[in-house]
């Protein structure tokens, strides 16, 4: 059963698990690595076949073949000359590809700063000057066909940013700012995951990258830039409860008094595809369940349980958060 039917891969792919994301790239940075991967697999297959054949001859071959194999000449040819030639070629290829992948950010790139937290992702969209244009969490929206510079930071311990279908991974190291470039060539949702062990809920630290058509992207960003509507009815009561329950101490909601920075920014939580850093679909039930008892869904995370709130209140808060799109 698929609980997060949000990744853009067809059903057959999802059923068979093939091709695996690393070999199913969706952008130029990942696909250059995929090409390299296939070359490496071919190389490995050929060498393994050679070794197996040689072993076969050594153990069960005819006397004539065995005597040809049983001398230092074989060591010089297959053990030294062959690896040197193959490895030199691979090294040159690998180095030039590394240089391409590590090209410094260009001014034309879209800039996003992602900060690793235990165990979620803080996302800040940057403007040309490097100022923060918009805050979000656990979801990165990018336009198709444009290169995105992701600035990687950490606020606590080492994490690693990895979206297999878009690019390789780079670590988020406290005290440093690493840079990764990625690009998606087709609209879709691409799963990402923390790849560096960061204790506790490391296993449940996911996120996603959403690639939009350029027009769609412009509309999306414009919609986000508009101030959220005043909540009415149940949502209004939820807004009051949100404030009274102290949620604002940890969470920020743009345009309100809630300005906490300890937890994910909730200004646009209603439009996110997932909750709990990529692990739950976002709907009324999961939102209420998450607020009521986050520890049973993601053990060890930093959100305290609000299980003492009655159902109406949880519903109201969830309804309020749903309006923050």
């Amino acid at each position, binding site marked *: 059963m698929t609980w997060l039917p949000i990744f853009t891969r067809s059903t057959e792919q999802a059923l068979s698990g093939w091709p695996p994301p690393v070999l199913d790239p969706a952008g130029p940075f990942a696909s250059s690595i995929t090409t390299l991967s296939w070359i490496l697999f071919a190389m490995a297959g050929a060498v393994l076949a050679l070794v197996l054949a040689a072993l076969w001859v050594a153990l069960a071959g005819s006397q004539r073949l065995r005597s040809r194999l049983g001398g230092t000449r074989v060591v010089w040819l297959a053990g030294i000359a062959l690896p*040197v030639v193959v*490895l030199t070629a691979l*090294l*040159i290829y690998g*180095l*030039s590809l590394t240089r391409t992948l590590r090209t410094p950010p260009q001014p034309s790139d879209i800039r996003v700063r992602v900060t690793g937290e235990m165990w979620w992702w803080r996302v800040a969209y940057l403007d040309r000057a490097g100022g923060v244009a918009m805050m979000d969490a656990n979801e990165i929206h990018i336009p198709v066909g444009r290169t995105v510079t992701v600035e990687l930071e950490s606020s606590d311990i080492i994490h690693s940013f990895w979206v297999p279908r878009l690019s390789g991974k780079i670590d988020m190291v406290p005290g440093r700012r690493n840079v990764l470039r990625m690009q998606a060539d087709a609209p879709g949702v691409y799963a990402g995951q923390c790849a560096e062990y960061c204790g506790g809920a490391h296993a449940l630290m996911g996120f996603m990258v959403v690639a939009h058509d350029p027009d769609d992207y412009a509309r999306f960003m414009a919609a986000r830039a508009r101030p959220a509507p005043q909540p009415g009815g149940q949502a209004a009561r939820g807004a009051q409860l949100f404030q009274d329950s102290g949620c604002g101490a940890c969470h920020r909601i743009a345009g309100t008094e809630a300005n906490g920075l300890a937890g994910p920014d909730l200004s646009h939580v209603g439009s996110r595809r997932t909750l709990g850093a990529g692990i739950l679909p976002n709907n009324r039930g999961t939102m209420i369940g998450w607020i009521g008892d986050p520890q049973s869904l993601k053990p060890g995370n930093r959100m305290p349980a609000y299980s003492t709130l009655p159902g109406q209140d949880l519903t109201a808060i969830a309804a309020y958060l749903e309006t923050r799109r």
Partner: protein
Amino acid sequence: MNWRLLLGGMAIWALHFFALYGIGSIWHSGMNARLLTGLMTLLCLAGEGWLLTRIWRQSGDHLDAWMRHLSLTLIALASLAILWQAFPALLS
């Protein structure tokens, strides 16, 4: 033959490697790093060559001959590794 000649080839590789690591850490990239890397590589390859001529002239009994061959192959492998080591800077 002695230990110094036997391990000399690889010792020069180590010297070259750590020098390049230092250069890369200080300058990261750019012209300085490439020039220094090239210079260091030439120096170390020359060192291997010098060692080669010294060992070439050695003679002696079975053990000396054996160690001489071993040293020469070590020098060859070290030179290859030195050359590869210089690729990242020289090819960029």
